[in-house]
């Protein structure tokens, strides 16, 4: 015991500023996660060079991996900071765990470890990720639903819009408009609902646009990066079939 954690953080005051690295060192404690380490730094934000600096900016909320806030690149891999346990993730050099933190790179940088993920929420509008109920007044129960479909819907509905799938995807980049796997998962989620499926046609039209599903290069990084283990590659395969059938039906004049 008595180890320290040496934390190297990529700093950048804003998108227009130069980036640089700051290195901090704090005492390690058992079962310490990355968020605890960041909390410790801000209580005394001095670098290993003895320079007092502004505490690094980062985002977090629930700290139990359900809110999706604290996504960042940790030792080169995108994930949530709250479940990132230092003892397991870090190499030991001398008596220090070595930890490297960087912001996600596929989203516009805000500051330090914070990026702007609003395009993910805009994506949810584009795929009409909702059930178009008539109104919120009392109208009795919903139609009965098959519990096996419910199980798949539940899995898809655990998506917390954290951005891991986007960060890991080679097709999400500055030159592409690809909406990403997360929104495609939500497309299937609502297509599988008896009332949500009434907007299926609109969703297919959108996901067959240039922002849609054809961008997928089948790297399958999304499913590997997803902290909630959503079956994203199966989702995309399913939607590929569904859109083909939809186009076919449209072509022979059956689709509305």
């Amino acid at each position, binding site marked *: 015991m008595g180890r320290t954690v040496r934390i190297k953080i990529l700093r950048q005051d804003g998108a227009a500023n130069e980036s640089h690295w700051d290195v901090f060192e704090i005492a390690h404690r058992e079962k310490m996660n990355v968020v605890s380490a960041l909390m410790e730094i801000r209580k005394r934000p001095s670098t290993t060079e003895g320079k007092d600096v502004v505490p690094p900016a980062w985002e977090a*909320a629930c700290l*139990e991996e359900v809110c999706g806030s604290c996504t960042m690149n940790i030792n080169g891999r995108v994930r949530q900071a709250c479940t990132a346990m230092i003892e397991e993730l870090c190499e030991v050099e001398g008596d220090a765990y070595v930890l490297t933190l960087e912001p996600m790179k596929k989203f516009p940088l805000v500051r330090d470890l914070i990026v702007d993920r609003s395009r993910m929420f805009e994506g949810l509008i584009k795929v009409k990720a909702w059930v178009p109920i008539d109104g919120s007044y009392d*109208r009795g129960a919903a139609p009965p639903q098959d519990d096996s479909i419910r199980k798949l819907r539940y899995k898809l509905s655990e998506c917390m819009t954290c951005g891991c799938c986007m960060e890991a995807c080679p097709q999400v980049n500055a030159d592409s408009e690809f909406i990403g796997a997360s929104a495609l998962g939500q497309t299937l989620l609502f297509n599988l609902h008896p009332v949500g499926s009434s907007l299926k046609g609109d969703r297919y039209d959108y996901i067959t646009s240039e922002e849609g599903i054809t961008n997928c290069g089948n790297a399958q990084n999304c499913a590997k990066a997803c902290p909630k283990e959503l079956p994203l590659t199966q989702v995309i395969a399913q939607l590929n079939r569904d859109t083909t059938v939809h186009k076919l039906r449209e072509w022979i004049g059956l689709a509305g």
Partner: protein
Amino acid sequence: MAAQRKAAVVGGGLAGLMTAMKLAEAGHKVQIFSLVPVKRSHSVCAQGGINGAVNLRGEGDSPYLHFEDTITGGDFLNHQPPVMRMAERAPAIIYLLDRMGVPFNRTAEGVLAFRRFGGTLKHRTAYAGATTGQQLLYALDEQVRRYEASGQIEKFEGWEFTSLIKDEQGRCRGLTAQDLRTMKIESFPADAVVMATGGNGVVFGRSTNSIINTGSPVSICYQQGAHYGNPEMIQIHPTAIPGEDKCRLMSESVRGEGGRVWVPKDPTDERKPFDIPEGDRWYVCEELDPVYGNLLSRDIVSFIIYCTCRMGRGYKGGQQVFLDISHLHHKKGMTRELITDKLGGVLDIYKKFMREDPIDHPMRIYPAVHYTMGGLWVDFEKGHEGALDIESHRNQATNIPGLYAAGECEYQYHGANRLGANALLSCLTGGELASQGVLAYFQNMEVSTEDLASSVADDAQLEQQSRYDTIMRSDGTENPYGLLAELQETMWNNVGIWRLQKDLIGAQGTLDELTERSKQCAVIDAGAWSNQAAPFTRTLQHMIEMSKAVVAGAINRNESRGAHFKLDTPQRDDDQWLRTTRATWTEKGPELDLDEKVDCSYIAPRARKYKVNQHSIVTKIMGDDFFEKNVAPQVGDAAGK
């Protein structure tokens, strides 16, 4: 249709989104202000489910029984008419969520499945796996997004609420808020404002709350004249994984399925916990109450664990005891699959943060602050036969005209302790009722945002700008995050499970000190873009003001009721204390009044039935003479203050 009005909703959790959706549906414009994207609000953390007496299993369940359980759970401090309304609305609310597409667990026939939860014998809790809160929040988020797409709802995510705008008549006419990227403070006139900003667990440090749950917005309203009801009522959950950053809840269902609480008889025992033989273990709950054992109520189990650790008898002498299910597989032969099927979601959280499988290793746990029963004081109005008059503008209304509150940030539904699976429900029914209150208020409103003198809004904005500038110009040396840790230590140690009058009075002094020191914070970030430290300093100041009300309420309430257990006055005292603590902010500290009697128009208070109580636990664990040595005898009658 009445003229289109504009409402501002602060907070984008379940209560805020419900209110916003309902107001938009009624044709009004809504602006939602939220620290984080609303989809990341603390409602996502609720695991267990949502109560509603649908009686789908022929158990004779009814909203009345749900009401009764809620009132008994609250130890009779909750006003009964709004609770009755909540219980009556519950089935319809659950059906509504079902229609919105929440992936609730279902039966073979395909209809909603219900399960049992704490505090009741009926199958009354609808659930979506182990993430019911997340699923409910998303369903509301999706409906609100529809209105966002059509332009009727506008979201201000990443904005921090900084103050109410009040006109000369004292009415709430909007709010000011700060964009946490550009740091710009702006004013937003509105016809009504609804607060839906959740609880204040972060004040206590050891809490299951998200780190955004500082209670700061409630404190702001309180400092601007809103009454604060029952601030002393804070729920502490017995079994959470202790963590430096936060504590993570281990659901009550673990004890329900046979989990046992124990510590090694020798706290310095070096053996692996699993290898410590039965004879060297102290099953503390089972010893204190052989009948209920580990299934004693939340407050009692929390208290036992606390006393054990306070006496240095926690594992390794620290603040941890074991919650153990390893015997289920290793001694009783339950299969791993069966255990996982029953407790999977909960065990996963433990594995994720402690990297041990609870099926093979006793879990290390400690109590943590879980829920804020107290909050902004809100009104209600009774109509026909004493039931709630849902057309009244007074429902969910604070004492500031035009300011409403819903969800955990208000005090109305849970009394002195909240029943499991009632939190999500009260957010939704409270949000619904708040929207009805606001609609009624709009109908009789003589003014509108258009005729608000621009100087009123400008003054409010300038005041907040000047407050922020003061923080940015400070030449102090305190680190605000360090001060937060001190505030949390003070509150947890003196106002948590263990409440003693002299400690509470001591805490008052510490809070006064912290007030001064929080005005002397160093400018650790002078930046004008996405500055986190300066707004945090402001939040910290608000947290301290709020903490003063919590402490004052606990000092004043000379009885023990629900979550408030004070060693000096261990009994419930209905003659004097069937009353709301109502705090009003002053610069010198909170002023409390007890003018409001609890509305018990449906059922009369009755005694709780305990085999052991906190008093007997203390004498058993800490010695017979503990009270003589440590608790000053009570003199006089403090109720009439």
